[in-house]
């Protein structure tokens, strides 16, 4: 009987303990994978806002054409400017009418003279927005108001940070618990097979020879738990993907990229086998002392 067959024999001889080990490992990897999927979604949301940085500068009424052109010229001098769109009062009115086409009373009341002209500036480097905001806020006789996504990004960053911290703490705690449970289960199995181990030792088996089936057993738990946990997380995320992605539209919060899931599965298997191995190694080290 080779060590793998021996490990399988141990698993079959105490199915409840083995089931608990796989279950704990599965729950751990389910939470780990869900956390990674949500984190990835949060990053995408953040990236979306970060890669679409815009600032809108509303101008005061009554500015002459040269002043407006100067302001536009100044904006173009900033690094990383992608596009500068000037929304004249007339254009603002047509936009307003488009937005409120279902409310004719409003569109009749509002004229181009009461709507402000503005610049919509999109940049490739979001840090420049802060600079533009500060410099143009100082032009109080020309600029009426400035709006940009700083607050949205700040709030998103806060949320992402909180989710990451909570995720990392809970995944670490669950991994630690899993590690200890596997270690204790392997310890119990070693105690159950104490006689077999001591006979093998008397027959000349090395310490590693008697430990090997238990180490393989731990790796089997890790691989099974990692595989089932990852697949369950993928199944769950795909089940809710449509509604969640619709909510975050146009952002794809739940990834549909197959290679992302293959990568996650590989990571789960590698991590699972490592946790299983280390936990069983600790259990074997503690309990095999004869």
């Amino acid at each position: 009987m080779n060590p793998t067959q021996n490990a399988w024999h141990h698993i079959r001889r105490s199915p409840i303990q083995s089931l608990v080990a796989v279950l704990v490992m599965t729950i751990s990897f389910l939470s780990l994978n869900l956390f990674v999927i949500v984190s990835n979604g949060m990053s995408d949301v953040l990236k979306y806002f970060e890669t679409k940085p815009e600032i809108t500068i509303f101008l005061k009424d009554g500015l002459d054409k040269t002043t407006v052109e100067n302001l536009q010229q100044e904006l173009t001098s900033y690094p990383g400017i992608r596009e500068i769109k000037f929304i004249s009062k007339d254009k603002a009115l047509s936009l307003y009418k488009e937005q409120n086409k279902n409310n004719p009373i409003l569109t009749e009341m509002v004229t181009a003279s009461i709507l402000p002209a503005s610049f919509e500036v999109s940049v490739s480097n979001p840090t420049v927005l802060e600079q533009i905001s500060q410099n143009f806020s100082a032009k109080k006789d020309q600029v009426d108001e400035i709006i940009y996504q700083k607050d949205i990004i700040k709030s998103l960053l806060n949320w992402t940070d909180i989710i990451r911290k909570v995720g990392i703490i809970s995944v670490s705690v669950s991994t630690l618990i899993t590690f200890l449970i596997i270690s204790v289960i392997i310890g119990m199995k070693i105690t159950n097979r104490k006689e077999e181990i001591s006979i093998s030792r008397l027959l000349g088996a090395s310490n590693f020879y008697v430990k090997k089936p238990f180490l393989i057993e731990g790796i089997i738990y890790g691989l099974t738990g990692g595989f089932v946990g990852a697949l369950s997380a993928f199944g769950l995320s795909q089940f809710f993907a449509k509604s969640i992605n619709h909510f975050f539209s146009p952002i794809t919060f739940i990834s549909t990229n197959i290679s992302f899931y293959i990568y996650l599965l590989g990571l789960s298997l590698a991590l699972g086998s490592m946790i299983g191995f280390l936990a069983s190694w600790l259990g074997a080290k503690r309990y095999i002392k004869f």
Partner: protein
Amino acid sequence: MNVVFKNVSKHFGVINALNDVSFEIKSGDFVFLVGPSGAGKSSILKLVLHQYHPSSGHIYLDGEDIFLHHKSIVDKLRRNIGVIFQDYQLIADKTIEENIALALDINGVPASEIPARVEKVINQVNLNSRRHLFPSQLSGGELQRSALARALAVEPKLILADEPTGNLDPENSWMLIKLLTDINSQNGTTIIMTTHNMDIIQSLNKRIIAVKNGAIATDSQPVVVDIVKVEKTKFKKKLKRK
């Protein structure tokens, strides 16, 4: 395998299991360890197997002090020792065949060779019909023979047999003794056997170490038989009858 005990003592708390025991068993010897229960016979075997640690003294196997070496060396030494334990020490949830195969696997015998080696020893001890059974399904005598088969399978340099005929009927006892003497004479395997069976001891003319109260009481070498003298006596007796 050469076995040397040099002033070996073993204490269990206040109980002295062995007290300043010294002897040498040369490679290829067949030695009986005799004595009443609790005299220290099993302790000697357990010390040879490194199952016990001596309280004082030295034990040498093939010139190596086994208690000065790293555990891996002890494992290697144990692989050269075949043991027939008094309580059989067979793994309960493995069949007889698997128990024997395990010993071979521990000895590093290639997997492809294991079935043939198992087959050979199972036939030697007449356990062919019991090979797929578990130890709990066998009688005392069958268990004893299974333990013997496992010890023989690894083709050891030294066999330690602790009361191997204790649970055997006379026929199987003699079969076991024949197997051990054959292995001793053919392979030069050193054999140390504890027993209470005086018929076997008297009929074999082997060295006998008698242990009493944890010490060597007597150490009698086998009687060297002068064949010429024996034959001459036999001839004279026959002539007288005529």
